[in-house]
């Protein structure tokens, strides 16, 4: 059982608060991604789970045991670092077998596990080499193999793909997903890349300013962001926002167009819609096209709607020129509303 539970954790470095009010549960064999911009506290949280940092407050439980007073080697974890941390003075075989030797496993089992994990990561031909003779992608595979060979309860990964070039990152992402699913280990993965998060996670915890803003499945985070920050961070291009003023019970005026919305005891709300949830129609928002980018798969049009920046992702067969005025209707079930003061979503 390798469920992870963090309760009321906080971390301060002197006067700087890195984490506050963290409550997180990761189910057994779940792939949890901690997603956020640089400085949001995601790596600090991962290091607290690993035992490389101690939380200022709160508890960490792994597999039903309280571990926050235990050193990393007694927590049943294995970690993949952003810079791989492959030992330069040992061969690939010795690197992968390092943790197994520390556990004093018999030589035959060490060899079997090392060869099996190396085959899994497609590096069986490199076992005799030193890290200086490997490319970045190969070193990354060694780092992952070394963690997997430990057969840990939990595998922790700190932005393992961010130092790879774009194509390699794409390949490794798919490989990692397959390997980790097959190994049935609980995994926590830290990244700032929302595409990686969407593609790999069972659940995403979006972090901002040392707090977890939303923890939900990728499609849930995408369709129903809990806060403006999440809506703007996830999805490329990000969600569009327009101010809305009340026009009666459940009716709101958005850029001069009436829209059905929630009943709220407020004068203003924020209207949000994703660029790909807009369709050209007879009635809708009046958008003046400013920049048209034919991206091949679709057409990205940056427009002006009542003085606000507005983006639309439209069919690539459409012909739009800068200066054209488009009428765009949002798909009703995809419209989201946010409270302008708290930035939280309104159901």
């Amino acid at each position: 059982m390798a469920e992870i539970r963090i309760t009321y954790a906080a971390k301060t470095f002197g006067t700087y608060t890195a984490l506050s009010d963290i409550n997180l549960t990761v189910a057994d064999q779940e792939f949890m991604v901690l997603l956020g911009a640089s400085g949001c506290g995601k790596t600090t949280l991962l290091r607290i789970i690993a035992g490389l940092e101690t939380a200022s407050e709160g508890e960490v439980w792994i597999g039903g045991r309280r571990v926050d007073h235990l050193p990393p080697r007694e927590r049943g974890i294995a970690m993949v670092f952003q810079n791989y941390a492959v030992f330069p003075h040992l061969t690939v075989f010795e690197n992968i077998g390092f943790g197994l030797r520390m556990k004093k496993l018999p030589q035959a089992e060490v060899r079997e596990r090392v060869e099996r994990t190396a085959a899994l990561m497609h590096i069986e031909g490199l076992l005799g080499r030193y890290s200086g003779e490997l490319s970045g992608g190969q070193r990354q595979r060694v780092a992952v193999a070394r963690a997997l060979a430990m057969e840990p309860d939990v595998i922790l990964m700190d932005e393992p793909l961010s130092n790879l070039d774009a194509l390699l990152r794409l390949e490794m992402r798919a490989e990692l997903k397959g390997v980790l699913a097959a190994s049935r280990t609980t995994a926590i993965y830290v990244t700032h890349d929302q595409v990686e998060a969407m593609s790999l996670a069972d659940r995403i915890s979006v972090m901002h300013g040392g707090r977890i803003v939303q923890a939900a499945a990728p499609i849930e985070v995408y369709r129903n962001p809990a806060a403006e920050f999440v809506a703007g961070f996830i999805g490329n291009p990000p969600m569009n926002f327009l101010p809305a003023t009340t026009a009666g019970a459940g009716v709101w005026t958005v850029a001069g167009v009436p829209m059905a919305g929630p009943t709220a005891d407020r004068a203003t709300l924020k209207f949000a819609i994703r660029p790909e949830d807009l369709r050209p129609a007879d009635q809708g928002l009046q958008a003046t096209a400013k920049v048209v980018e034919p991206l091949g798969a679709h057409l990205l049009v940056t427009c002006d709607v009542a003085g606000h920046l507005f983006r639309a992702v439209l069919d690539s067969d459409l012909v739009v020129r800068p200066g054209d005025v488009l009428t765009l209707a949002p798909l009703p079930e995809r419209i989201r509303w946010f409270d302008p003061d708290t930035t939280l979503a309104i159901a």
Partner: protein
Amino acid sequence: MTAATPAGRPASDARRAGRLVYLAVVGLLCAWVLVPIYFLLVNTLSSPEAVNNFPKAFWPEFDLASLTFFAQFAGMLKALTNSVLVAALTMVMSILIGAPAGYALSRFDFPGKAAFRLLVMLTRAFPLPLLALPLAVMFIQTGLDDTIFGLALVHTTLALPFAVLITFSLFSGIPIELEESAWTLGCTRLSAFIKVVLPLILPGITASAIFAFVISWNEVFAAAVLTIENRTLTAFLLQNLDTSPLHLKFAGGFILVVPALVFIFAVRKYLFAMWGIANR
């Protein structure tokens, strides 16, 4: 044609002149160091008669008479042994004390860290002649006077700033992630240090040790003041400077200079790294 040519000439002339000055300075500095060593070599490998003659030869006779005389001179070999012992002890002590200090400075943040670094450097700021007499008095009182260990203590103090600095830069060159990785793979702090950090810094620690050895080997003043019977080679030669024959002095100088030269040359890469020059 263009008018560029007359404008270009003064610039290239200036560049050529500058280059000549540069080469002259380099040549002068090399001569400053190499000529005395050359004379040392020539006269060491000449017979005692040739050394005392004038004019001097420019090419050595490869006569080992001076060196054999040197080896047989009363007290010479004992002094040589003392030098080796003191230097070896200095080497061991300065690494045993300096390396943990270098590790602490590179890995930990503690109150007084900046002051500590400054203090370590400042120990070199004291002129040894100022300290020598009080030290001699203290040594006599504690019974350390005229002992190998006593002199090695003083030499360790002289070598420590370098030991700390070199090991500090060595440990800073090892990413902390390597140790952290070892901690997640089952190592304690100590076993991670032994299995991961030590193999990587061993060449550098060796260089630091050799540097401490050379500092002790070359040291004259403290050795002369703090030892009477158990003189090191430097103190011995100083003592006999007026009375010893010329070829003895040359042979002694040769014995002193050459090992130090060889050692420093062998570890130059680490000294360059410490001083910030990249030399691959």
